[in-house]
C-alpha cells in the first residue's frame, strides 16, 4: 500500500516505513542509542531526500526514546542527575558544533568531513568496545580470576565539585560528565545525529557507569537533544515530514518496547558486543562508500550552488 508523503513529495510503501521504524526502535530500546545513525541512511536508501530524512529521523528518535525511557524509569535504571549534567554539557557543545558546521558548509567539504568523522569515531569506538566486552565475557566464563574494575581513573576522584550520583553508584566530580556531554554534543551537531552511540560507550568506559543504568540515562538525554533538533529543522528548513514521522513512530515505539524487553534477557557483555558489531558494520559501510568507485559518479541535489 503506497502513501504520498506531503513534505518529501515522494510516494512510498506504508509497511516498509512501519517496518523501518520498528527495526530502529528495537535497536534503540535494546542499546539506548537514538538510532539516528541508522534511520538516516535507511531513509536515503528508500528515496527520501537527505534533508527530510535527517530532520524527520530526529522526530522519530524523540518518540522511541520516550517509549524506551519510560520502561527504564519504572525499573529505576535512569540516573536523572547524571542525565541533566550530561545534557547541560551537551547543549553547550552542540551550540559550538552548529557554529563549526556552518563554517564547514561554507568551505564546501562538509559531506566528506561528516563521513570521515563517522568512520573514525564509529570505527574506533566499535573496535574498543568489541575488544573490551569480548575480554570481559571470557573472564566471566573462566571463574577464579578476579574481575577488574573498568574504571580506575584516580584523577576522577581528585577533581573538585564532587557529586554523588546515587543511581549510578558513583561519587565523582561533575567536570568529566560535563566534558563528555559537551564533546558528544559537539560531535552530534557536526554529524547530524543524537550521539547515543558515542554517549553510551563514553558513559561506560570514561565515567565508569554500570551498563544497566547507561541505556536509560542515555535515552533520557537523547529525548532533549533530538527534540531540539526537530524544532530547529522544522523552523529553519521546513524539512520535518509529519506523515513520514508518524509511520516511523508507529513502528518505532513498538520496536523500542520489544527492544527494552529483549535487553533484559541479555548479559551486559553480550549487549555491548552486539552494539559494538552494529557500530562496526555502519562504519564499514561508510568506509566502503568512500573507497569503492561509485556506480554513478554524479549526484543531484535540488537547489542552487551555495
Amino acid at each position, binding site marked *: 500500500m503506497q502513501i504520498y508523503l506531503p513534505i518529501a513529495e515522494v510516494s512510498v510503501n506504508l509497511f516498509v516505513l512501519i517496518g523501518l521504524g520498528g527495526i530502529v526502535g528495537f535497536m534503540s530500546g535494546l542499546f539506548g542509542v537514538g538510532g539516528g545513525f541508522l534511520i538516516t541512511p535507511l531513509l536515503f536508501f528508500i528515496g527520501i531526500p537527505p534533508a527530510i530524512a535527517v530532520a524527520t529521523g530526529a522526530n522519530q528518535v524523540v518518540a522511541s526514546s520516550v517509549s524506551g525511557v519510560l520502561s527504564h524509569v519504572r525499573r529505576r535504571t535512569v540516573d536523572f542527575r547524571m542525565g541533566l549534567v550530561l545534557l547541560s554539557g551537551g547543549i553547550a557543545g552542540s551550540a559550538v558544533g552548529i557554529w563549526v558546521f556552518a563554517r564547514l558548509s561554507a568551505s564546501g567539504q562538509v559531506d566528506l568531513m561528516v563521513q570521515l568523522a563517522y568512520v573514525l569515531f564509529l570505527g574506533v569506538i566499535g573496535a574498543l568496545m568489541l575488544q573490551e566486552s569480548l575480554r570481559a565475557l571470557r573472564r566471566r566464563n573462566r571463574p577464579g580470576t578476579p574481575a577488574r574494575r573498568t574504571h580506575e581513573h584516580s584523577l576522577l576522584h581528585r577533581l573538585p565539585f564532587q557529586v554523588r550520583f546515587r543511581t549510578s553508584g558513583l561519587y565523582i566530580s561533575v567536570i568529566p560528565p560535563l566534558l563528555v556531554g559537551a564533546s558528544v554534543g559537539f560531535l552530534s551537531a557536526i554529524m547530524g545525529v543524537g550521539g547515543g552511540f558515542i554517549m553510551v560507550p563514553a558513559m561506560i568506559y570514561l565515567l565508569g557507569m554500570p551498563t544497566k543504568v547507561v541505556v536509560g540515562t542515555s535515552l533520557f538525554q537523547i529525548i532533549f537533544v533530538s527534540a531540539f533538533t526537530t524544532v530547529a529543522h522544522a523552523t529553519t528548513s*521546513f524539512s520535518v515530514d509529519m506523515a513520514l514521522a508518524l509511520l516511523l513512530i508507529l513502528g518505532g515505539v513498538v520496536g523500542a518496547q520489544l527492544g527494552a524487553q529483549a535487553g533484559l534477557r541479555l548479559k551486559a557483555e553480550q549487549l555491548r558486543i552486539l552494539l559494538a558489531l552494529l557500530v562496526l558494520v555502519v562504519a564499514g559501510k561508510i568506509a566502503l562508500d568512500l573507497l569503492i568507485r561509485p556506480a554513478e559518479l554524479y549526484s543531484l541535489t535540488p537547489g542552487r550552488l551555495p
Partner: protein
Amino acid sequence: MVAGLSQSSVAITARFEGSQILIYGAVRREAPPPASPPLAVIVTVEGPSEPVTVRRKDRRFGLWINTEAAAVSAAPTFYAVATTGPLEAILSQTEDLRQRISIPRAIRAVGIAGDVTDVASFTAALIRIREAERAYLIDTGAVRLTEDTLFRTDVALPANLTEGSYRVRIFLLRGGRVIDWNLSEIDVRKAGLERWLTNLSQREPLAYGLLSLLIAVAAGWGASAGFRLIRA
C-alpha cells in the same frame, strides 16, 4: 488542430498512486493534405522547473569525494515526450532548438554555472539520472495517429509528483517542421490532509514542529503504557 485532455487538474491525496492523462485531438483542415512527407505528432508533458546542482565524485587521496559541481538554473522535475515515430526522423534540429522539444533542449543548459570544464557531461548526467528515476522519458510510437486526422496518447504521471502547473504541448509536424502547435495545462495540487500539512509546515513552522514533538511524545508514552497493560 483541436485538442483536449481527459482531466485538467490532478489532486494529490495521501493515497495518490499516479495518474493517467489521456491527450487526444484532431487535425482540422481546409484543403486536402499533401501526400508526402507524412504527418507526425509529438506530445510533451513538462512539470514545474527547479534549479538543480549536479556534483561529480573524483578519487582524491584514495577516497571518492565530491569535487566539481555545476548548477543548472532550471530543469523540469518531470518531462515526458510521446511521439508517433523516432524523434530524430520526425523533428529537425532547428525546430528542436526553437521549440525545446527533446529532453536535452528542455533543460536550459544555457543556464548552467560553476567552475566546470565539461558542461556537457554534467547535463548528460542530469538526464541519465532523471531517466533512471523515470522522471524523464521518451515514449517513441506512443501517439496513435488514425487516417492522418485523429490522434491520441496516454501519459502516465508517476506517484512522485511535484506540485505545480504541468505544461502539455502538442506539435503537428511535416517533414521535420512544426506546422501547428497547441498548449494546455494540468494543475497538480495537493489536497486534503497533504494540503493542510504542507501549509502548516510553511506558515506556522514553530507550531508544526511542536505538534510533531507532541505526537512523538504521546506515541512514545502510549506505547509504553499499552505494553504495560498487555503484560499486566
